[in-house]
């Protein structure tokens, strides 16, 4: 007879996703009741909700909390939802990213350039962000899978949301099919892990895998297949094909959302699963992640070199950055100390934070420019520094930070942290690969940045973009965060050093 499992729910701990989910519903229903073309009101509700969730994250700061715990006579208490420093940082990144995307989308939702339905767009963005918040705190495989799907499903709809747009529909279909197949493969892996360990809670999975007697082919296959679904979400090679299609087929604001919120969700899912659940199999997934990471950054950068369109270049560059994000995890193997692994986790967290804000700054300006020049070619940016100095400054800062050059010092910190963690973990070849790829990437970032200052083409009047207030605010928030992280990188660097994880 199974004892009744009564659970007390700590509502404050789950407040951030709860607030965001409630806001999503309010936005969807509000859009029904409010008069047509009330896009601004819906955005205002969504922004308020996101700020409230950010406030809830602030309340939880400096405190480790857990909820949805079960205890069986057999073992200690296991929790499905745990809030620790890494969780909070990722939740803050997701919320800031959502905030910037919502402000950026204001022009598409309301006003003259209305191309997206307001209520639906806001609802889908907030739902997807809710999934990302839960994923950061998930500590059992069922929660991880469900949260991953909550992130993904609204994203497919967002990509195909623009009406009468065959490119968006096609991009949505590619994105959707690749995603559902990889999720099915991941679920098969989860089922095998469950079969090998008898539990879905990551701490129990880790204990069972570490106990040695269950070190079987089944468990190994389960671990590898589970990583497939997460590698897809991050856009790592060989699951990267959907990235350029989805980014360039959908609206630019959706591409910004995918490149920041959805990618951060994938990375945090990967970090949670490998560090909490599979540390005993580090010698299985460590080398695999290392190879995937180096292949991803190389392929992303080489493909980005020959792009002629802004969004496609950012898409391939975001593939390359996935490689940099995964690089620190590649040091994991049975010989690595818990301290070095903690440093690797910190490096991943720091890289994601910095990448998110500087990438949003770049995407924000691209979204503004694309509204006026839909072709999206690089020539649209020729001489932007003379016609729109503020936008050009934000774009230039974003691009140089992505490249890792001053004045975008934040990007430089991120690269240094990643290389440092790879060296500390004894994987010098990964550090070398990151360094070589950074040099390759300089070519396309600098070419684009130089174009901003080139003299405008003959016989073409400089276009004034009249940047809307919301878009300006969005770019300003991202740029401000980037500048702050350039000056005070210690805000995000070294967060997980304390959480030492023992590798088997």
């Amino acid at each position, binding site marked *: 007879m199974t004892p009744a499992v009564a659970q007390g729910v700590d509502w404050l701990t789950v407040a951030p996703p709860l607030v965001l989910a409630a806001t999503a519903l309010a936005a969807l229903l509000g859009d029904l009741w409010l008069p047509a073309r009330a896009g601004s009101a819906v955005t205002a509700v969504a922004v308020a909700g996101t700020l409230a969730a950010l406030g809830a994250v602030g309340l939880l700061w400096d405190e480790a909390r857990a909820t949805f715990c*079960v205890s069986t006579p057999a073992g200690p208490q296991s929790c499905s939802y745990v809030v620790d420093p890494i969780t909070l940082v990722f939740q803050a990144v997701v919320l800031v990213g959502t905030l910037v995307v919502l402000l950026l989308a204001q022009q598409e939702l309301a006003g003259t350039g209305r191309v997206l339905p307001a209520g639906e767009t806001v609802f889908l963005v907030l739902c997807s962000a809710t999934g990302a918040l839960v994923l950061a705190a998930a500590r059992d495989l069922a929660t991880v899978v469900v949260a991953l799907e909550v992130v993904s499903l609204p994203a497919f709809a967002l990509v195909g949301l623009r009406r009468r747009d065959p490119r968006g529909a096609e991009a949505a279909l590619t994105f959707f099919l690749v995603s559902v197949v990889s999720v099915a493969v991941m679920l098969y892996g989860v089922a095998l892990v469950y079969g090998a360990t008898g539990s879905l809670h990551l701490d129990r999975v880790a204990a069972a895998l570490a106990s040695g007697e269950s070190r079987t082919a089944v468990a190994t296959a389960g671990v590898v297949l589970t990583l497939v679904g997460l590698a897809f979400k991050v856009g790592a090679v060989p699951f990267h094909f959907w990235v350029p299609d989805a980014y360039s*087929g959908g609206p630019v604001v959706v591409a910004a959302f995918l490149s920041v919120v959805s990618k951060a969700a994938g990375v945090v899912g990967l970090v949670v699963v490998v560090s909490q659940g599979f540390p005993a199999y580090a010698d299985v997934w460590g080398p695999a992640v290392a190879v995937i990471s180096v292949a991803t950054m190389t392929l992303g950068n080489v493909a980005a070199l020959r792009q002629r369109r802004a969004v496609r270049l950012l898409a391939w560059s975001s593939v390359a950055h996935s490689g940099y994000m995964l690089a620190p995890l590649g040091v994991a193997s049975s010989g690595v100390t818990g301290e070095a692994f903690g440093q690797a986790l910190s490096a991943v967290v720091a890289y994601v934070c910095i990448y998110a804000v500087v990438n949003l700054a770049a995407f924000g300006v691209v979204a503004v420019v694309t509204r006026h020049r839909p*072709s999206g070619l690089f020539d649209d940016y020729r001489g932007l520094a003379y016609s729109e100095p503020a936008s050009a400054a934000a774009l230039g800062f974003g691009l140089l930070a992505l490249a890792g050059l001053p004045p975008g010092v934040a990007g430089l910190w991120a690269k240094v942290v990643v290389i440092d963690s790879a060296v500390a973990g004894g994987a010098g070849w990964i550090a070398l690969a990151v360094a070589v790829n950074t040099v390759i990437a300089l070519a396309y970032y600098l070419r684009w940045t130089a174009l901003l200052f080139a003299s405008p083409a003959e016989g073409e009047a400089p276009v004034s973009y009249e940047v809307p207030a919301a878009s300006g605010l969005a770019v300003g928030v991202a740029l401000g965060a980037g500048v702050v992280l350039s000056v005070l990188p210690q805000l995000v660097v070294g967060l997980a050093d304390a959480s030492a994880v023992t590798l088997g």
Partner: protein
Amino acid sequence: MRLAFPLAVSALLFSLGVFGVLARRNAVLVLMSVELMLNGVTINLVAFDAWWSDALHGGQVLTLFVITIAAAEVGLGLAIVLLVFRNRATSDLNDLGLLDERAEATEGNGDVTEPGVAR
């Protein structure tokens, strides 16, 4: 019952699904193949749940979630296939080429409202 029987059925279903995903070029049939893969997963989960006599019934709970996820995926997937069909009058994956990088590079014009032409 031996654990091997349900696991073999599950592996067979999953492999059938993988074959379908790789071999079929119609989006709806690919969707159906994904469903087969997910059904393989659920059989696995239920079998392992019974084998471990899991007090928390994690396998059964995840099975319910997988069924829900599969339903949500099919709903959304058919909507997207319908959207593509309306625009292009085809649901054949080989006919999708609007986002082909090489085509885009030579065409030189990224007008998003331009109706696509099947290759």
